[in-house]
């Protein structure tokens, strides 16, 4: 073991400090998680799921952890600028790893809770107990690490039959002048026939090295519907370890679009468990890399029951020396008859130094299903580039147009017009190299 021992020592030494401000629910799960973490440590690069992503090394830097919950004042500048033009949202912030209420316009519908995970766990333990860590409990050791150390995060609860019309926006920010680790948690519960759209912006980067672990558990009840848009805009010295767990009941709908616009070193894991007949899921992703960026997306769609539909589209555009990893598994269990499942992974390597590791997987144990998957790695179409040049479009511009067109297919899956327009513009800017020196969340400015 390497750096994990240091974290274990910190945990053992400061256990009271960690537990003290936290709800019993968090502490109970913490106790189980630390045992699991101690047993395995961080995943090594010989493990199947981590072959190309050396996460232990990323944890070995000397990050500050705010275990004593020293209050961080939220800069009003950050709070008030995270608006997407033409999009009214209910906002919440996670600054470092503490919940801060945002700049809310309209009040949320009756019964909806958008608040600090720890506060709600303290005040309504019975509400959260059936959910908290029920999916993540089986997660890998980075997830156990998060559960062991986490002290707060965001809870979004939507009671049955309630539709939240305005998008809920949760923004993660880091404020510190030292190397910093953020350990945050999101718990999202949609009861029967409720509906919401959620935008998660990850802007947790500092001038110094930073690492954030984010574990999200989502429960989508019978007939409920959730659109989830995740956007990472961090910087080269940031590491993100994200794990998303989704459980869908019958006739529920989940639409996920995960965009890595700028980053340093990113690992995202998405696990969707289809547990009720007629559930539909769509998980899309777009990763744009250049310089030394590393983007690893691992997905699992677990079809456990009949008559569910899943659709997956992940696209990577890798420039310079960047690295992309995609491992997507569709698991069709014996009971999952009449499954319709499609997975597509398309990747562009713009230079000979860019690397893409693609591993599409389809495991089918039922005999009456319709499934397909495909993966390609290629370069920009030379004949299209020349065709455009012949029409007078300069080579560089032609490249941008083709890259933008390639990315556009993913962005078009975003159901909110204002957000889709904004992302089209941001991606175009990204290709032109105009986002390199951004300081704030560009989604908003």
């Amino acid at each position, binding site marked *: 073991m390497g750096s994990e021992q240091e974290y274990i020592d910190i945990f053992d030494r400061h256990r009271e400090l960690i537990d003290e401000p936290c709800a019993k629910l968090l502490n109970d799960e913490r106790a189980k998680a630390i045992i699991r973490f101690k047993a395995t440590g961080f995943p090594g690069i010989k493990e199947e799921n981590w072959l190309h992503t050396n996460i232990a090394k990323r944890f070995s830097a000397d990050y500050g952890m705010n275990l004593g919950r020293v209050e961080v004042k939220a800069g009003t500048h950050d709070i008030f600028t995270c608006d997407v033009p033409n999009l009214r949202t209910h906002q919440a912030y996670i600054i470092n790893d503490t919940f801060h209420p945002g700049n809310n316009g309209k009040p949320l519908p009756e019964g909806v809770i958008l608040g600090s995970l720890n506060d709600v766990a303290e005040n309504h333990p019975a509400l959260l107990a059936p959910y908290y860590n029920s999916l993540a409990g089986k997660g890998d050791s980075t997830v156990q690490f998060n559960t062991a150390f986490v002290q707060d995060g965001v809870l979004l609860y939507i009671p049955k039959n309630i539709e939240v019309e305005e998008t809920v926006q949760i923004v993660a920010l880091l404020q510190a002048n030292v190397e910093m680790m953020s350990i945050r948690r999101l718990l999202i519960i949609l009861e029967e026939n409720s509906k919401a759209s959620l935008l998660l912006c990850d802007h947790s980067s500092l001038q110094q090295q930073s690492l954030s672990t984010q574990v999200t558990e989502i429960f989508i009840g019978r007939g409920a519907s959730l659109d989830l848009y995740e956007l990472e805009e961090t910087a080269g010295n940031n590491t993100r370890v994200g794990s998303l767990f989704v459980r869908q009941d019958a006739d529920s709908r989940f639409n996920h679009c995960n965009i890595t616009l700028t980053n340093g070193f990113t690992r995202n894991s998405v696990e969707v468990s289809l547990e009720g007949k007629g559930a539909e899921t769509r998980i899309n992703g777009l990763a744009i890399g250049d310089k030394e960026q590393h983007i690893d997306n691992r997905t699992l769609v677990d079809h456990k029951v009949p008559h569910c539909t899943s659709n997956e589209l992940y696209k990577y555009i890798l420039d310079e020396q960047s690295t992309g990893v995609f491992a997507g598994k569709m698991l069709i269990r014996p009971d999952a008859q009449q499954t319709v499942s499609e997975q597509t992974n398309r990747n562009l390597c713009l230079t000979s130094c860019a690397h893409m590791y693609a591993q599409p997987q389809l495991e089918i144990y039922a005999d009456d299903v319709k499934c397909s998957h495909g993966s390609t790695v290629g370069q920009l179409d030379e004949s*299209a580039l*020349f065709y*455009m*040049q*012949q*029409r*007078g479009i300069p080579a560089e*511009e032609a490249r941008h*147009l083709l890259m933008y*067109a390639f990315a556009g297919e993913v962005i078009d899956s975003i159901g909110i017009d204002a957000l889709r327009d904004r992302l089209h513009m941001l991606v175009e800017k990204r290709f032109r190299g105009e986002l390199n020196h951004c300081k704030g969340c560009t989604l908003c400015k």
Partner: protein
Amino acid sequence: MENLLEIKNLHATIDGKEILKGIDLTVKAGEVHAIMGPNGSGKSTLSNVLVGHPAYTVTEGEVIYKGKNLLELAPEDRSHEGLFLSFQYPVEIPGVSITNFMRAAINAKRKYLGEEPMNATEFLKMMREKRALVNLDSKLANRSVNEGFSGGEKKRNEIFQMAMLEPVLSILDETDSGLDIDALRIVAEGVNKLKREDTSSIVITHYQRLLDYIKPDIVHVLYNGRIVKTAGPELVMELEERGYDWIKNEN
């Protein structure tokens, strides 16, 4: 009339194989030239070399266009200078709409000429007008460039782009291939409507039928990388009757 294009002793290779073996050709402003010839004689290579396709290497000779050394210009600058190629096989560009494609092309040209970008209203008006010229469905204009287009729609789209860019010298590379007789007429009429006194065309074709609509002033036969015969329009009929074998035998 002044010389618009002068090709002198042009040699070109692809993958080390010599395809053009000394082409000499002069096109004056306002002229329509037809280049005919059997398969594999180098017709498409000539058009690709003129527009600067990177796969071809010019090993000898020169090309003077509007008094400039054409071979030194980047492909996009050749386009800005008024050179247009209607591709034999127009390329599909998924995800790029014809509207965005043309806007990028028009504005790049205007930038090259030191002009302001065209405003949106003016641009859309121009799109409408030029679309009408070749009966290009307005629905096609919102689709990705050539994606899922029929052969006829692709060629019509080429002539539509030609109308938008108003070239000085247009090269039509087998624009008739894959067209039925109605589509051929529409495309040819489009080309004729775009003809101005000072603009020139090089029409590359195997067959007489396109030249029934687009009347050439001068007809060349390209064979084995060289122009082996040059004559007036009457040569078209002769080739139609006798085929290319007599030319092959003579050379």
